[in-house]
Every structure is written in structure tokens, then in C-alpha cells.
């Protein structure tokens, strides 16, 4: 008998949604000791499945049909009390966002002990340090006494896992637990889950959108698209010989590590020498101010026509460095030479002519466009601020929309009428409206679904070739960097630890951090089948 057997599950969406059912006729099963990955893009309904199993669906979503058998009992027919007795005791669940998942006013140890108390288990507070040690948290006694805000994201997620597994449940449901974590932390958590599963024989239902994660931990895979299961089977079969066109498209969209050769043109476009930027936090009367060194002594060289990747995790300083280059923040030391001019010495007026030559594409497609302006105006505003007449600028805007493969007629619409990928194209068009020489792309695809990601990367590469752009590409995703960057610079804690040709750096990394970064690419042993 399967540990968990979902049959024909259908959950209805409220009227007026983009489809009738959030999920329709879903079938899958989890065996004891096995990891099942449910893969899909946003809106595929994978989280709804998880919520339905736990009985945590929001009131607006009703279960219309099907059954969810857990250890032989249909959860959908169980009473509220019965379901509550199972939650935390036989089925554990961890969620995506660790930063908000713990009660900020309760100590961590108390929250873990609560699981034991409400299910009448023995031990209580005494067992907490042992549970924390089991998830590899150092100094468990101190962490048990701490409040959540003192812990990092990775630490909080481990606490969540400790809480979910405290009563040794038969099934662990993990809803995108590593999406909000750094790459290195993600690998640690994935290995932890795998380890626990081996030791205790827990069944794991793991929801993700990342095929690399699937390659790393899945025994079996279920692929979902728009509320339906399109393909299911053993991991090796799905990863290496996908049958359904959607699955094939998803896997094809995963960036494959084929590093392009670096550009040959020796002319230096941008040079950063000894750039330093420090932030000060806190302060005030009688208070101490803490120093946060965001960027320390950064040295980078960018040659004409090349794409340099700036790679690092959150807090590495890569975004701060980018902002230093475009003067959104002012570094306190160092020189930023664009051709012959040191940009750090210019004031606001002196910068104006350079605004035309250096432009930026931002990360969040939903925050990078003013919701109250029409798209055509958004693109035309840059040139208009530099003296171009409105008519000419708007005409050019329509041309640019065509260049980024959108219809020129959409210039009259507002940003909220577009999808994430389309908005990112508009952002690129806005940057290109200035005819820049240097384009800085700050994590331009990180907030997009995998299939859309691939399209935008292709677009950027085409535009770079056509327009002869030089690009600084910032990302935390090594696969993406490997695909489109000829040279790469790795950043950690504000310091550039390694620079060089992408192929060389990835094949034989010299710095320990680079090595651990490469080590943390989930499923790095897996080569997505091409074609």
C-alpha cells in the first residue's frame, strides 16, 4: 500500500479565475522511503495539491472531487479533529518562505516543543536540543533560546525541518523549501532532507520548479501544467527521455553549461579599481553603529563586446557594485573608469551625457515599471529627458517594442496588462532606447519562470550581437552564467575571489568559495538532453 495515494483530486477555483479548476483529476502516489518531486511553473497548481493534502486550503478553494488516501485513510473524509491529530505527527510540512514562517514573539525552542506538547508526546523542552542537533544546527542550546529574527534564512528553514520531523512523521511535504535560499544553503538543506529520509525511511513529497533540484533528489517525478498532470514516472526516465512536449520544453529551457568563447577585442570599456562601499546600520543616541562592508576593493575589467558575468549569492555585494557603476550609490573609494573618464569624480550634471551610454535592466519585472504610465511613454521617457521631442521618442519606442519581439500596438497599454516575461522585454526596450554602449543586467531573469527565462536570455544574446553591446550580467545562478557569459567574476562578502574565462573557472576553480558554489549546483551531474 502506498504511503500517500492521491486519486482524481479536483479543486475548484472561485468564479472569474483564468480556469475552472485549480487542479483537475490529479493522480499520484508516494511510497514509503521514496522522494516524489512535483514539478511545474507558477500557476500549475502544485502548491494547491500540497495544501489540499494537509487540509490547509484557503476558504475560497473547494475540493470538488477525488480522494487522498494516507496510510489507508481518506483525508478528505476525515473530521477536523482527526486531521489535526495527523498534522505534525504523521505528516509534516515545510514551506517556502522561512523568514516569515516562525512566530516572531516566541523562542525557537518553545515553538519546537509546542509540536510535542499538542500531540501529547513526552519530552517537551528537554528534547529540543537533540532535535536541533539532528538538523545539523551548531550550538543547539543557544539556538533553542533564540528568537527567530536572530537566525538566518537557512537556519530558520532547518528549524522548520526540525519542527516538522520532531514526531518522526511517515510523510514530509516540502513546498518549495529552498527557493528562497542561497545556492549553497539550498544544497545543504537538500542533502539534509535526503539524509533524514535515508535514516528514517520518511516519504518525501517535494514541490519545486527547478529541474536541477529534481535531478538532485527525486526518485520519481510528476510534471504539472495548468492544474493537470502531463507526465509522471521514474526520475531517470523523465530527466533523460521526456515524452510530453511540455516536459521537453521545460527541460530544454534549463540553461546548459555550454560556455561561449570570450571576445577577442582588447579595447577596455569599463574598469573598476579598488572600489569600496560600506553601509552603516543602526545608530542614534547612545547606540552603536554597525559597519556593513558591501563591496571591498573590487577590481574588474570589461572588454568591448563581451559579456562578463558577476556571480555571487545574496549579500555578496554584486548588486551594490552594479549600483555603484550607474551612480545609484556612491562608493567611498576607488575609481570607475568608463573609457578614459573616472565616473566617481563626476557630479550629477557631469553624469548626464554618460546616462546615454550606460544603461541598466532590473530584476523585478513587477516593480521596474511605473504602474501608472503607459508602456510607450515609459520607453520614450529616457530620450525625452535628454532633449528628444515627444513624437520622435514615441516613434522610436514603437520600433524598440518590435525589436524585443512585442507588437508595436501595445504601447498604449499599462504594465499590469502584461506577463512577467513581457514586462522584462519592456524593461530591456527602455534601456535600449538610449542607444547605450554598456548594458548592466541585474539578475534580469531571476524572477521569471524557467521557460520564459530561456526566451529572455536568447533575446539578450541576440540584441548584444546585433547592437554590439558590452554587457555586465549579474546573477546568482551559475547555469545561467555558464550559458551566456564569456568571462566570469565570482564575488563573496564584497570581495571578488576569482575572475577569468567561464569555461576555465568552472572546469578548474582555484578559490575554495568558487569550488563550493559549483558544488552546490543542484543536479550538476545531470546533462539535460539537447533537442
Amino acid at each position: 500500500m502506498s504511503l500517500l495515494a492521491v486519486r482524481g483530486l479536483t479543486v475548484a477555483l472561485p468564479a472569474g479565475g483564468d480556469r475552472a479548476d485549480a487542479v483537475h483529476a490529479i493522480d499520484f502516489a508516494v511510497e514509503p522511503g521514496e522522494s516524489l518531486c512535483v514539478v511545474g511553473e507558477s500557476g500549475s497548481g502544485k502548491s494547491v495539491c500540497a495544501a489540499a493534502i494537509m487540509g490547509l486550503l484557503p476558504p475560497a478553494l473547494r475540493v470538488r472531487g477525488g480522494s487522498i488516501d494516507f496510510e489507508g485513510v481518506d483525508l478528505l473524509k476525515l473530521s477536523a479533529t482527526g486531521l489535526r491529530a495527523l498534522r505534525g505527527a504523521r505528516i509534516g510540512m515545510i514551506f517556502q518562505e522561512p523568514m516569515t514562517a516562525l512566530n516572531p514573539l516566541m523562542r525557537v525552542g518553545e515553538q519546537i516543543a509546542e509540536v510535542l506538547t499538542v500531540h501529547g508526546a513526552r519530552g517537551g523542552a528537554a528534547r529540543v536540543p537533540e532535535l536541533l542537533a539532528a538538523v545539523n544546527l551548531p550550538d543547539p542550546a543557544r539556538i533553542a533560546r533564540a528568537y527567530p529574527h536572530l537566525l538566518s534564512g537557512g537556519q530558520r528553514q532547518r528549524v522548520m525541518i526540525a519542527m516538522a520531523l520532531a514526531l518522526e512523521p511517515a510523510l514530509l511535504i516540502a513546498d518549495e523549501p529552498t527557493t528562497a535560499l542561497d545556492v549553497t544553503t539550498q544544497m545543504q538543506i537538500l542533502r539534509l532532507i535526503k539524509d533524514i529520509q535515508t535514516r528514517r525511511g520518511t516519504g518525501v513529497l517535494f514541490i519545486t520548479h527547478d529541474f536541477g533540484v529534481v535531478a538532485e533528489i527525486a526518485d520519481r517525478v510528476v510534471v504539472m501544467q495548468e492544474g493537470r498532470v502531463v507526465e509522471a514516472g521514474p526520475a531517470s526516465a523523465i530527466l533523460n527521455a521526456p515524452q510530453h512536449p511540455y516536459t521537453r520544453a521545460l527541460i530544454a529551457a534549463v540553461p546548459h553549461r555550454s560556455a561561449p568563447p570570450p571576445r577577442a577585442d582588447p579595447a577596455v570599456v569599463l574598469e573598476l579599481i579598488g572600489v569600496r562601499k560600506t553601509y552603516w546600520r543602526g545608530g542614534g543616541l547612545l547606540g552603536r553603529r554597525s559597519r556593513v562592508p558591501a563591496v571591498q576593493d573590487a577590481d574588474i575589467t570589461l572588454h568591448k563586446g563581451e559579456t562578463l558575468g558577476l556571480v555571487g549569492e545574496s549579500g555578496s555585494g554584486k548588486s551594490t557594485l552594479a549600483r555603484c557603476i550607474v551612480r545609484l550609490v556612491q562608493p567611498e573609494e576607488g575609481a570607475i573608469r568608463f573609457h578614459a573618464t573616472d565616473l566617481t569624480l563626476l557630479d550629477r550634471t557631469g553624469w548626464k551625457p554618460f546616462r546615454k551610454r550606460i544603461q541598466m535592466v532590473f530584476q523585478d519585472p513587477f516593480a521596474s515599471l511605473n504602474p501608472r504610465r503607459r508602456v510607450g511613454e515609459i520607453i520614450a521617457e529616457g530620450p525625452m529627458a535628454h532633449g528628444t521631442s515627444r513624437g520622435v521618442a514615441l516613434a522610436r519606442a514603437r520600433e524598440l517594442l518590435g525589436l524585443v519581439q512585442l507588437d508595436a500596438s501595445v504601447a498604449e497599454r499599462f504594465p499590469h496588462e502584461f506577463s512577467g516575461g513581457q514586462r522584462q522585454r519592456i524593461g530591456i526596450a527602455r534601456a535600449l532606447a538610449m542607444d547605450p554602449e554598456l548594458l548592466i543586467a541585474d539578475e534580469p531573469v531571476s524572477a521569471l519562470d524557467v521557460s520564459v527565462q530561456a526566451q529572455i536570455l536568447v533575446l539578450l544574446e541576440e540584441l548584444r550581437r546585433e547592437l554590439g553591446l558590452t554587457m555586465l550580467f549579474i546573477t546568482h545562478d551559475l547555469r545561467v552564467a555558464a550559458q551566456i557569459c564569456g568571462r566570469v567574476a565570482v564575488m563573496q562578502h564584497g570581495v571578488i575571489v576569482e575572475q577569468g574565462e567561464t569555461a576555465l573557472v568552472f572546469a578548474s576553480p582555484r578559490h575554495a568559495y568558487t569550488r563550493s558554489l559549483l558544488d552546490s549546483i543542484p543536479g550538476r551531474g545531470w546533462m539535460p538532453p539537447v533537442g
Partner: protein
Amino acid sequence: MGSARFWRFLAQRLLKMAAMIVAIAVANFLLIHAAPGDPASVMAGEAGAADPQFMAQLRAQFGLDKPLSTQLLIYLGNLLHGDLGMSFRQGRPVAGLIAERLPATLLLTGTAFAFALAMGMLLGALAAQRVGRWADSAITVLALGFFATPIFWVGLMLVLVFSVWLDWLPSFGMNTVGADYTGWAAVADTAQYLVLPALTLGLFYMAVYARLTRASMLEVASQDFVRTARAKGVPEGRILRRHILRNALLPVITYAGIQAGQLIGGSILVETVFAWPGIGRLAFDALLARDYQLLLGVFLCTSVLTVVVNLVTDVVYAWVDPRVEVG
């Protein structure tokens, strides 16, 4: 929060409070001088301006012939000695008058505040629990209603209903004149005089706290950590008590501190309606008599009270919320 950090936090806030009080005193001083006309005549009021001896005394006391900065120092110095000036109308030092009347105001505002907070949080929590149902609608409408009525009018209406028509409760003063009660009898006597004024002042703020508590509880109930608690199998009652309530109270505490100033200010209106012998009533008398020294004295006193209450709420908040940074 560890005790060392807590004491540093307290020291920080006390320093801030002291700075605030100095700023208020300076503002008080500036108000006197900003008024049209000779500061001496402003301070003397209509009646005092007619008395040349009083005017001369005022000028000497405040050093009105000296430069502004010296006057300020003299003024601040006087304050440190507890000298708030003289009330011409009443013929007594302002500080003494205020000290006499302060306890009555504290009794009134304290009771009103306690009532407003307790009832407000209760009703708000109830409304949040029964959101969308008739209890919620009833409480919301009630809160909206009390929120829209001027305090003094509520007082008058209560007097009309409970004093004039029903004759259940007395309508002015603090105790029965002539009957010299002592001990518990005095307490009981004052209590019946306290009911209407405290209710008047409290109902408005009860509405404020009810709406705030309701909104806060609804917001907290939708947060991630509540979902985590459910996923752990925690029963709903325990979720409400240990997870939702504590977190929902935080904005109420903050707001209570901010509202304290309004509450104390509202006592002017309530004490006027009910002839309650507190500093609010004193301010009203000062207004009628154009006795500005007294008025400004009351202003200073209420401001200092508000600052102290703010300090207390800040400390309570820091004690409840471990995330508060000391700096």
C-alpha cells in the same frame, strides 16, 4: 531582551524624554512671545493688564527688558524650580493649582483609558473571530458610530439620558457636596460621579481600539507563521491565544501610546461638560478668564504627561517584542 540591553534602551528613551520636555518648555516660551502684543499683557490676561503693579512684577519676573535668550534661560530656570507663574484671577501660583487638580484628571483619564483598552480589545477580538457575521457587523457599526461623535456631545447626551430623564446618575462634580464621606463611602460616592465622565471619554477611544484590534487580528491571522502552527496540528484555541493575540497586540500598544495625548486633551471637553474638578476644567476656566499663564501651565503639564505615557508604552512594547533594536 537581555537586561544590559534593556537598561541601555531605557537610558536612551529617558534621555529622549528629557530632550522632548525641554523642547516643549521652549515651545511654551515661544508661544508666549509669539502672541500679538506685549508678552507681559498676554500673560497678565485682560484682568491683570489693568493692574500696573502686577504688570511690573511680571516684567521683573520674566526679565522682559532683557534679550530673548536670557529670558528663555530665566524661564527654564523657573521651571526647574517648579515655578509656573501666577494666576492672576485665582491669586495663586499656577503650579499649586495644577498639583491640586491633577489627581482628579488622572483618575478620570486613567479609568477611561483602562475601560477603552479593555472593552476595545475585547470587542475587536470578538469581531475578528466572527468576521463577516452579524456580531462583526454590529461591532463595526457601533465602533464607526462612536468614532464619529464629538466627545462633548456624547457627554451631554449621557447626561440627558441618565441624569435628566432617568435620574440614575449625577451630572456634575466629583462627589456629593455637603455630605462628608470618608473611607469606602467616599470611594463609592466618587465612583458614581465617575461613571458618566469616564464612559464619555472612554467610548470614543473604545471604538478606536476595537477597530484597530479587529484589523490587527485579521492581518495576523493571515500570516505565514499561523499557517505553520496549523501545519503542526496546533488546535485553533491555542493558535488564537499563543500565536495570534500576542502578535496582534503590538500595533495596539503602539497606537495606545500615540492616542494618549488625544485622551488627555479630550479631558478638557469632558471635564467642562461634567464640571469635573481636574486640570481640564482648570484650562476651561483659564480660557474664560483669559488667564494665559494658567492655560500655558496646563498645556505644559499635559504635554509632559503625554511624554511620560509615551515612554511607558515604548518600554512595554520593547519588553513584549524582542525584535526592537536598542541601537
